[in-house]
Each structure stands twice: as structure tokens, then as C-alpha cells.
């Protein structure tokens, strides 16, 4: 299927565990992004990637690790999950740079850290 898919859609884990959220896009967009969405904070950028093997920190990168070995995949890892990382995580892909910087979002992963 064309588009951007995230997995899993829902995840419950315990504090201290490692969790990896997956993101896959079929458009061959060069840029990919990870956001978290929390009530009262809106959408906050965690990390983004301009291409394979190129990643940059966003607004809230602490506690997260990303990698991008292939253009179509951009996994997000919580190395040691904390309760404050309970959130809804969105992956997006798109262009960056005038005039094309529209972003296309996945359906999200709802993560609960107990």
C-alpha cells in the first residue's frame, strides 16, 4: 500500500524497557520526521532525517534514538522508557525546502509507559 505506515498502533510497556516504534513510507520522500503529541503541548518534533544516515535533533530529543539505514524506514527507539514518554507518536515524511515542504503523516502510535 502506498503511503506512510506506523507500527504498532498501540503499545504498553514498563519503565526501563526498550521500545522501538516503526515507520515506513513508500513515496521515496527524502525527509522523515518523528513527533510526539501531548495535551497542552501540541506537536513537538523529536528527530528528523534528511536522507539515509543523516539525522538531526528536534525540540525534544532526549531519551530517544533514531536511525535511518534505508530511505523508506525511520525507526524511533526509546532506550529506557519513562512514564513521561507516554504519548502519541507520529511519523511524517515529505520535502524540506522551498517550495515543497508539505508533510504526510502516519496514523500514529499510542504508547503507554507504566
Amino acid at each position, binding site marked *: 500500500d502506498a503511503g506512510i505506515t506506523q507500527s504498532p498502533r498501540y503499545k504498553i510497556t514498563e519503565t526501563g524497557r526498550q521500545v522501538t516504534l516503526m515507520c515506513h513510507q513508500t513515496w521515496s520522500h527524502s*525527509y522523515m*520526521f518523528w*513527533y510526539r503529541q501531548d495535551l*497542552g*503541548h*501540541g*506537536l513537538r*518534533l523529536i528527530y*528528523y532525517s534528511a536522507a539515509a544516515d543523516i539525522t538531526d535533533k*528536534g*525540540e525534544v530529543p532526549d531519551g530517544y534514538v533514531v536511525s535511518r539505514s534505508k530511505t523508506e524506514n525511520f525507526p524511533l527507539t526509546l532506550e529506557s522508557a519513562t512514564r513521561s514518554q507516554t504519548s502519541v507518536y*507520529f511519523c*511524517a515524511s515529505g520535502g*524540506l*525546502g*522551498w*517550495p515543497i*515542504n*508539505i*508533510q*504526510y*503523516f*502516519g*496514523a*500514529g502510535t499510542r504508547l503507554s509507559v507504566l
Partner: protein
Amino acid sequence: SQQGEEDPQALSIQEGENATMNCSYKTSINNLQWYRQNSGRGLVHLILIRSNEREKHSGRLRVTLDTSKKSSSLLITASRAADTASYFCATGSISGNTPLVFGKGTRLSVIA
């Protein structure tokens, strides 16, 4: 940190009425975009307006941009229950080489 701030935070209207949402931002931009998010779903791009444009239309959507006031508005005409969603503005930097910055959104409820 948020660049765009939407106003109001929440809006409730009757079906058939017009809905207006505003977005203010702080730094110079090269474009401003509006996205919609239905409950439990990801954001969907609605419309993009460039910094040299003042108004843009797409179906029932009308977007205005006032760069002197650093503000934008999104008007949805003849609202439908299906328009119930959160609406976010996002700004693109002048350089075009940094990610979009999203506001916190306006939650619109359209009552049938």
C-alpha cells in the same frame, strides 16, 4: 518551541455556520500551512499559502495571510459535522531548510 499559536483553542458551532480560526507566529516565514487532525488519526495537509500571497481558496476553505501582523486565518464556510476535528497551522522558515513548526491547534466541533 511553538512558532504558531492558534486562537481560539476550541470552537463550537452549528452545522451550516462558518468557522474561523486564527494563527499568529513570531518570526518571518516563507509559507504557512494548515492541517486537519480527526480524532485518533494523523494530520492531513489542507492548504499552503506562500508569504507573497494574501489569500487562497480551496473548496470551502479560505486562508488569508497578513505578514505585517504575522497572522493567518482559516475560514471554513458552511460547516458540516464531518469538519469536526483539530486544525493546526504550521510555518515554514525563510531559509526553507528547517522543519515546519506546528501550533497547538484549534479544536472545532460542528453540531448537527
